[in-house]
């Protein structure tokens, strides 16, 4: 059963334009000029119950705008959408009882109070029984491993701890659908992984559907089964994550720093050397042809390693490749 149905959704924003300087300001005062921006441009998709759907794209692609339309905060310019059988912008408050939201850049926990106070407040806001709330907090505290700092004022928590509390809070009312907007922004690798693991665990335990937006391809790779790539307000790609990985996330970028100078004529078979410095090298390779372990082993043989960073191709790069294929 589809929990989200979107067809031909459009959102056009009108934003004021002003040329530089005092003259520009005066001109815009007398004759304001507006520019129309297609934030979401005729997109259609469906999401099934219990699905883990990744919604990715670069900054300004229209991801957040789509999520805001789906939560009922924004009215679309045209098109239809249904979330759990509700038309979001017409039945926003009814829908709010059944969905959970986390916006990585906008905390929902009360900053000066311990997270547990916000949990109890949410219990009241979602009209839950006190007994039920206590039980649920106990369960979530364990699942998200937040017992230790549940009673510490939020302002004193690390970003990773705070985000775990944020995501746990959004599960308090047992939503059927969770909308996560950039939940891992600014987090370190370990904190990111913890959030991903718990979200996946909650999906398996409670069957909650997850729509995740991110500009980090790693989030989608680790968490989602299906993916939509959105760019300039349009859907550029819709497929299984496994296919995306097979086709586009096959290359890795490695940056290495050595304790001694890099040997002359440095090269590792099966990789492209992008840059060689005095103490560091940067190379790229295809994981389908050259396994990660062998590259690392070869790198270690070339000298005493001080630092190694392995990263995925940027989403922009993936999108460039997808568009390149479409154009070809």
């Amino acid at each position: 059963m589809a929990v989200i149905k979107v067809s031909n959704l459009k959102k056009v924003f009108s934003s004021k334009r002003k040329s530089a300087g005092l003259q520009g300001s005066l001109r815009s005062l007398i004759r304001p000029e507006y520019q129309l921006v297609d934030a979401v441009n005729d997109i259609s998709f469906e999401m099934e119950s219990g699905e883990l759907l990744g919604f990715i794209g670069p900054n300004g692609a229209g991801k957040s705008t789509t999520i805001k339309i789906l939560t009922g905060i924004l009215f679309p310019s045209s098109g239809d959408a249904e979330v759990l059988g509700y038309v979001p912008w017409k039945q926003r408050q009814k829908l709010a009882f059944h969905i959970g939201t986390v916006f990585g850049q906008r905390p929902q926990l009360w900053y000066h109070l311990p997270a547990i106070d916000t949990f109890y407040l949410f219990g009241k806001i979602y009209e839950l029984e006190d007994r039920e709330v206590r039980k649920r907090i106990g369960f979530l505290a364990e699942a998200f491993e937040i017992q230790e700092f549940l009673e510490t004022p939020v302002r004193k928590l690390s970003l990773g701890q705070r985000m775990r509390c944020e995501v746990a809070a959004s599960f308090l009312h047992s939503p059927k659908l969770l909308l996560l907007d950039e939940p891992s922004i600014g987090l370190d690798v370990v904190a990111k992984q913890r959030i991903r693991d718990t979200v996946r665990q909650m999906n398996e335990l409670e069957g909650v559907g997850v729509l995740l937006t991110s500009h980090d391809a790693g989030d989608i790779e680790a968490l989602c089964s299906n993916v939509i790539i959105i760019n300039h307000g349009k859907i550029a790609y819709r497929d299984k994550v496994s296919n995306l990985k097979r086709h586009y996330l096959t290359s890795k970028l490695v940056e290495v720093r050595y304790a001694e100078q890099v040997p002359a004529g440095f090269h590792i078979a099966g990789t492209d050397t992008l840059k060689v410095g005095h103490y560091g090298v940067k190379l790229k390779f295809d994981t389908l042809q050259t396994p990660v372990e062998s590259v690392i082993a070869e790198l270690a043989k070339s000298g005493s390693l001080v630092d190694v960073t392995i990263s995925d191709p940027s989403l922009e790069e993936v999108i460039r490749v997808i568009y390149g294929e479409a154009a070809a």
Partner: protein
Amino acid sequence: MKKYWAIFKIQLLNRMAYAGDLIIQSLTIILFMWIFMQLWKTTYHSTSQDTLNGLTLHDTMWYLMMAETIMLSKPRLSRTIAATVKDGSIAYLLNKPYHFILYQLSIGVGDLAARTLFNLLSGSIIVWILVGPPPDPRGWPLVIVAFMLGWLIDFCLNTLIGLAAFASEEIAAFEWIYSKFLLLLGGVLIPLDFLPPFLRSVSMALPFAYTVYGPARLFVDPTLERFAGLVSMQLIWLLTLGLFTLFVFNKASSRLAINGG
């Protein structure tokens, strides 16, 4: 209603997390009352009369204490609402199952309760020392009702100013004009009894007098007759402004454009 009560309580807790800050803020009223005392003592002395326009120095000082408490305890809701519109965070307040206006109201009452408590305490202590005990305590329950109704009128006006950010982005000018109206026509600076008759009738025809002057004047003259007259005018203004605020909010939220994506 339980959820709004819970929101009120959490905001009160949130404010109380910095009780020291509230106490220091409330010291402002002590300075104000001392300055007012010097001014009004001289005024009464120069006229050689005990009563001016029906108010003794004792009445005037307790009136001003109440008026200043109302003014200084008001949370800056218009600024808060406008900030949520400007930085786009309004979106994150709208995705929970409550009414945005009632949510802001609960937050506002939470703020108001914390500030009023400290301002009232500091203000009362200094004025008691300066002019003697406060007016008849039997009138205080009436004053609490009028105080709350007055605050609700102020809440509507503040919300309207805050929502103006949807159209104009910047609301500092509206805020400035409103605060000056309150100072002069609302009775914050001077009891309206001292204004010329024409200006006084203009003031009484506007809502500002019912947020500050009405409750403060009732505090020093707590008669049932004054209470009935005041509360009926407050209810008329509250109904008018309340409905208008809801209308504006519904219009504004349907054309909401979130800043910051």
